[in-house]
């Protein structure tokens, strides 16, 4: 009979085996301990205090040259305006390098021509004359003229299937007046028309290039922006180089930019720390939180208007009754909802369509928004429950049933459960339904829902936002709540026709107050858009118009790359010396 392998080969008969084994075991423990130490170091929490990592007020003198590496959360599917999903912040920020908008907003939210030389309305604001700057050429050398603008509008935007088709429905046609002048004819008067030209419909691309590339045009963007495409390997990198024929004298400062889509948030941050990239962009609260505690970077934050929300279909009982919607709002604990999303201390609770950073924000509307009051919520709900004519057709005294649809993403599942718990606590009978994104969109646009988690508001002009969200549902497909009101209609007229900023601000406030009373939706927290860079990168935020007017910064992390620069080695050594001296001086002062 054969002995077991251990009896034959193991045992103590050969002394060297034991020594070697012991040596290995000792080494094994050493390696294990070293690994454990490294793991603990790597995973140990960052300092809890907020670091002083705000960018300097004075970025210093510009430096020419350098290659910037930027990591984004994703990329577009197609670079052709009208075809690509340019609504995502990652795509918007790259678009700012490839294309120039005809119009841009300044730091006070006022619109001014940018690539255009002028934009003038007629008296009734339904015809707008746009004059282009002379001598501007696309990256392929073809001129930007009136014919090119008309071609863009007719072939990329005013065609069914275009993603911008819905947003430009008020523009009937464009006519060429002369070499550099076009006239936009609108179907109705519209003071905030320039806002449309800050977005994809206002980013001209070379008609010659689109025709030359055919089906591949979306892979080969040819705009007038400060940088031109060198190479795009999808999901890997997008390499751009300086546009030598850029229309703005002396710009851009950088020689090249490489954009890299890094969808994993932790991996993106790790890449910044390890020096693989120079700049990153994020919209996630937990990453902003971590970056606030990091040194050796500059962190730029800007609150966006877009916020998580629960929208109500105001044509579906029982949320067609304002008492029910108000009771639902009164039952909520917005701080808890923000915390579930990981935004405590990062995202302020939203109370209206505009964040605290916006020029349209109203203190009065914030004060009017229903604050958490469970007793008041129960009382308001009871009033509806006891109403013999309650809209849901149930008998007085029966519970009120609410159905909420939401996406099956973990953070949203947690959020929906929090809604359920808070509403249940005041007496609602709440059912949650998880649906896939396309189903959710389809159900919401067709009005086949009661309540849905959603994202509400954006950075557009208030008229466009409110008209989309509260215009007549039969002609306004984006009015998902189906909520309309005479006060809104009246104030929309002001926003549509009155160019006076104070009158428009007042109209926005009136609408916000009404929404606080009628509650067609509730809010969670504003979206923090953040960009972080190593300390060599300068001027990511403070871009200016050609006349020196300060721009609108970096809404939704959208950077204007033409005016960004990178310190070269000499400038960086001087800067480090300056930082060291400043730190020493501060330490001495503290001592």
């Amino acid at each position, binding site marked *: 009979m054969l002995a077991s392998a251990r009896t034959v080969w193991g045992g103590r008969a050969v002394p060297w085996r034991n020594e070697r084994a012991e040596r290995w075991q000792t080494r094994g423990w050493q390696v294990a301990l070293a690994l454990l130490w490294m793991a603990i170091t790597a995973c140990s929490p960052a300092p809890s205090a907020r670091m002083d990592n705000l960018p300097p007020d004075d970025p210093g003198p510009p430096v020419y040259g350098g290659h910037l590496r930027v990591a984004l959360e994703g990329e577009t599917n197609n670079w052709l305006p009208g075809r690509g999903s340019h609504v995502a912040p990652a795509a918007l920020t790259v678009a700012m390098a490839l294309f120039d908008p005809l119009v841009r907003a300044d730091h006070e939210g006022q619109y001014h021509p940018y690539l255009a030389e002028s934009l003038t309305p007629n008296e009734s604001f339904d015809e707008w004359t746009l004059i282009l700057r002379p001598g501007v050429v696309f990256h392929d050398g073809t001129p930007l003229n009136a014919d090119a603008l008309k071609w863009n509008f007719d072939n990329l935007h005013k065609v069914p299937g275009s993603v911008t088709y819905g947003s430009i429905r008020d523009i009937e046609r464009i006519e060429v007046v002369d070499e550099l002048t076009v006239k936009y004819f609108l179907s109705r008067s519209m003071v905030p028309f320039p806002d449309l030209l800050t977005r994809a419909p206002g980013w001209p691309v070379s008609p010659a290039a689109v025709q030359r590339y055919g089906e591949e045009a979306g892979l080969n963007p040819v705009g007038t922006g400060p940088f031109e495409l060198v190479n795009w390997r999808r999901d890997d990198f997008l390499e751009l180089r300086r546009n030598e024929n850029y229309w703005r004298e002396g710009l851009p400062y950088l020689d090249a930019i490489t954009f890299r889509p890094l969808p994993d948030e932790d991996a993106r941050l790790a890449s910044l720390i390890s020096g693989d990239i120079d700049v990153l962009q994020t919209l996630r609260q937990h990453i902003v939180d971590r970056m606030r505690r990091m040194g050796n970077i500059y962190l730029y934050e800007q609150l966006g208007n877009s916020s998580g929300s629960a929208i109500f279909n105001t044509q579906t009982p029982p949320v067609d009754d304002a008492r029910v919607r108000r009771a639902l709002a009164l039952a909520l604990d917005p701080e808890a909802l923000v915390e579930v999303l990981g935004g405590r201390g990062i995202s302020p609770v939203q109370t209206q369509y505009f964040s605290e950073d916006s020029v349209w924000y109203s203190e009065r509307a914030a004060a009017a928004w229903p604050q958490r009051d469970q007793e008041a919520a129960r009382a308001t709900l009871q009033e509806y429950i006891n109403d013999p004519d309650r809209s849901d057709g149930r008998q007085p005294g029966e519970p009120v049933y609410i159905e909420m649809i939401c996406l099956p993403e973990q953070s949203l599942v947690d959020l929906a459960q929090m809604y359920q718990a808070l509403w249940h606590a005041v007496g609602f009978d709440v059912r949650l339904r998880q649906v896939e994104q396309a189903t959710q969109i*389809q159900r919401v646009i067709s009005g086949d829902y009661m309540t849905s988690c959603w994202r509400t508001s954006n950075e557009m002009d208030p008229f466009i936002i409110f008209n989309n969200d509260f215009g007549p549902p039969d002609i306004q497909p*984006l009015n998902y709540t189906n909520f309309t009101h005479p006060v809104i209609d009246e104030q929309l007229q002001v926003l549509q026709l009155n160019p006076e900023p104070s009158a428009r601000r007042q109209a926005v406030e009136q609408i916000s107050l009404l929404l606080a009373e009628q509650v067609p939706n509730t809010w969670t927290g504003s979206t923090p858009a953040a960009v972080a860079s190593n300390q060599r990168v300068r001027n990511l935020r403070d871009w200016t118009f050609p006349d020196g007017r300060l721009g609108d910064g970096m809404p939704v992390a959208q950077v204007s790359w033409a005016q960004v620069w990178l310190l070269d080695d000499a400038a960086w050594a001087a800067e480090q010396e300056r930082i060291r001296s400043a730190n020493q001086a501060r330490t001495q002062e503290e001592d």
Partner: protein
Amino acid sequence: MKLLLRKLPWLIGTLLAVSFFTFMLVSLLPGDPAVIILGAGGVSPEAVEALRLELGLDRPLLVRYLDWLGSALTGDLGRSAMTGQRVTEAILTRLPVTLQLGVMAITIALILAIPLAMVSAYRAGGRLDRLISGAGFALMSVPSFMAAIFLMLIFAVNLNWFPATGWIPFSVSPAANLRSALLPAFALAMIELALYMRLLRTDLISTLQQDFITLARAKGLPTHTIMLRHALRPSSFSLMTVVGLQLGGVISGAIIIEEIFALPGVGRLLYQSILQRDLLMVQGVVLFIATTYVVVNFLVDLCYSLLDPRIRYAH
């Protein structure tokens, strides 16, 4: 040749079934792809209808499948409605990254697994065996995404030995290519390593109890000769089979790793296409992965028959 002819109809049948189920699975997912492409902000009934017509979504499902199959047979998997890219071209562009990652991962796993399994089997039941086996089980239970993040934190962020993300093609710089591929390959190898080690250890223990090993020992052959020349070869039969199968499955295994390390491979292409509901791209990539699987399986079956006469005669 007879065996080949007998298996070929099964191969074709399997591929047809895979293609049909993939097409149906992706097409029958709830939600309209046109709505996804246009997004919530750009949706209007006319725009959705126009895009549906353009994408051919108004045609019956079976007609769309047969059309797609006809083109697929000629190597044309269609053009993505989301990106405008040709599906075949997209797959072929990314294939080298995934292949390199897979080959490196399997190589690393084998380089580590073979000696560890030998040490473990040599002292089966001993402290070292228990330690290695325990470590193997621990590795098997660590999700690959955690291993990836862990490796990234230690070796890229803290020690700065490797880049945290990104890919440098071999043609640009072989050294930089290896540097960018090593961490993800390690992360991927950690899943395979434990499996290989367990498999080889079991076979080795069994082999070490055979008469010819006792004979070799009696002849006074040194330990390393017996382990390497006499025990390893007959014990690696199952291992080689599994390695062959894993090579086919490495594409699906690479999905998470490629996403975390931002590598432009086939796995990431599939993941992004699923998120964007890019139907043609998903269908194309799944068909490609399934074909790779089936073909590799088929080749392993053939090799099995060639290596082991009992299987050949059984047929």
